[in-house]
């Protein structure tokens, strides 16, 4: 099984995100970066498929600035075999669909059975790249996947995916694109030998020109974020006072009906 895993480096979920005074962008100085948590499920699943098949390769593809090398090396330390880093100022300012287009051009040159993408990146929260990538590669896809089973003949896979109010089991021909959801697996940590080995694994830097793309980044983007702002802060809670928990419970019900008018 040869798998491709698309990887994004994102700010840690704990990070406090700030906004430039003029609202033109967010400020990410000093923020700790991690592998997008949903992409880790993809790496783990790809490693498990390779281990189960007893052969094959796991290749990471990442688009982003130079700092992303750290996330890529972490993925290699988990056990991925090699990586392509789409690292070019020409990619800056691209939106999700422009990113998917660039990833698709890279992936068209590669041999693979299955592609994993996180269901969304936890910074932009768009959740578009996996689906758009499948469209640009003319492949079927399944979103929000929590279980993957490859058929014995390796020509198809059966996946479970979350839908409203339940779950759907669908069969897709390979190759296909899977977007991963929490519940798929428990991603492993990089081992110390893994970290040592990762330093020597192939990591190829790719430029926009290598992909034959003339329009990338801002020029290819059809959406642009402006007027970044912090959400209005909620003021501290009105605490319900009372002598006993029972009294507070009764008062809470009353206040929700009469003051908040939500009951």
């Amino acid at each position, binding site marked *: 099984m040869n798998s491709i895993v698309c990887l994004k480096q994102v700010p840690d979920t704990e990070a406090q995100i700030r906004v430039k005074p003029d609202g033109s962008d967010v400020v990410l100085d000093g923020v700790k970066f991690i592998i997008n948590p949903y992409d880790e499920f993809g790496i783990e699943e790809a490693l498990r498929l390779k281990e189960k098949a007893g052969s094959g390769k796991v290749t990471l593809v990442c688009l982003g600035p130079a700092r992303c090398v750290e996330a890529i090396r972490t993925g290699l330390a988990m056990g991925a075999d090699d990586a392509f880093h789409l690292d070019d100022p020409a990619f800056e300012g691209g939106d*999700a669909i422009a990113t998917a287009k660039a990833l698709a051009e890279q992936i068209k040159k590669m041999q693979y059975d299955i592609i994993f993408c996180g269901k969304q990146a936890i910074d932009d*929260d768009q959740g578009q790249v996996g689906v758009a990538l499948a469209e640009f590669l003319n492949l079927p*896809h399944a979103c929000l996947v929590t279980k993957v089973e490859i058929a014995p003949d390796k020509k198809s896979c059966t996946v479970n995916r979350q839908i409203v109010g*339940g779950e759907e089991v669908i069969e897709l021909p390979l190759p296909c694109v899977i977007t991963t959801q929490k519940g798929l697996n428990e991603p492993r940590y990089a081992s110390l030998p893994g970290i040592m080995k990762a330093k020597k694994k192939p990591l190829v830097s790719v430029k926009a020109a290598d992909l034959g793309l003339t329009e990338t980044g801002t020029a290819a*983007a059809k959406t642009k974020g402006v*007027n970044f702002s912090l959400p209005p802060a909620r003021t501290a809670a009105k605490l319900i006072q009372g002598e006993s928990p029972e009294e*507070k419970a009764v008062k809470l*019900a009353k206040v*929700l009906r009469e003051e908040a008018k939500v009951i």
Partner: protein
Amino acid sequence: MGKGIWVFAEQAEGKVRKVTFEMLSAARKIADAKGEQLCAVCLGKDIAGLADSFAPYGADMVYMVTHDLLAQYTTDGYAKALCDLITKEQPSVILFGATVLGRDLSAKVAARVGAGLASDCVDIKLDGSGNITIRRPMYAGKVYADVIFPNASIIAASMRPNVLVPGAPDASRKAEVVTVTPELSATDIRVKVKEVVKTAAGKVDLTEAERIVSGGRGMKAAENFKMLEELAEVIGATVGASRAAVDAGWRPQSDQVGQTGKVVSPNLYIACGISGSIQHYAGMGTSKVIVAINKDSEAPIFSKCDYGVVDDLFKVVPVFTAELKKMMAE
């Protein structure tokens, strides 16, 4: 008349999703300001009975796209039927609900027709020059941004359910209904739906729920969630959970609210035994009224909610439930 503003009218089992009406009401204002026609586009099989649902909320025109192969949602089937209609009719704006289906379909359609797409948005309006700007949370709600569409010939967005306020339906409004038979064949659909498992039959999904009762680490055990289910039953709420409760195995992952779970926007969110981590808040911070019940007065949730009860939830919740039951019966 312009080329038209479209609202994708999502239906499941013959019932239109509420977010459709929310979007029609919001889009009606845009259509009026821009002098464009507002169209609802509904896909499925045996859906003729829904055709009159959309005019009262502002639709001027309704496309009913029906085909046997649309009986069940597949991205391939829906995307082909919708993209073919888009290519023919050339709308300027298409709105989807930011549901599981809507987010999947919108990304596919936008990639295929070359639309600019903003996902999971909370507002749509016109700027001073009459251009559409769309507001959306990023970083799980830690930041908001306005999205503009500089190079897009078609503007697409998925709108978060429960955020836009639907107007009162006007039963006297009428719309032109056009039935469309898409060119679809079985070979267009590459995936095969083998089984649909309903885990919460009859329950409103967290993402669409108007009221949510959520439990965290303070619930102490899976069986204690029965107390929250009883509360939820009384007020017609859906039960959610924090990551701690899910990781402890007390609740299924599909119940998780937060940055790595579901993002919800109910009118009322009742957090029981939840400390209120930044990741949890990211998933429910846009709720209209947040109530926290937690015995730890230092819990961060008390600085981010509207009403707080600092006390033992095991003593508060049963009395709270009983009191609400009385109120609901009045």
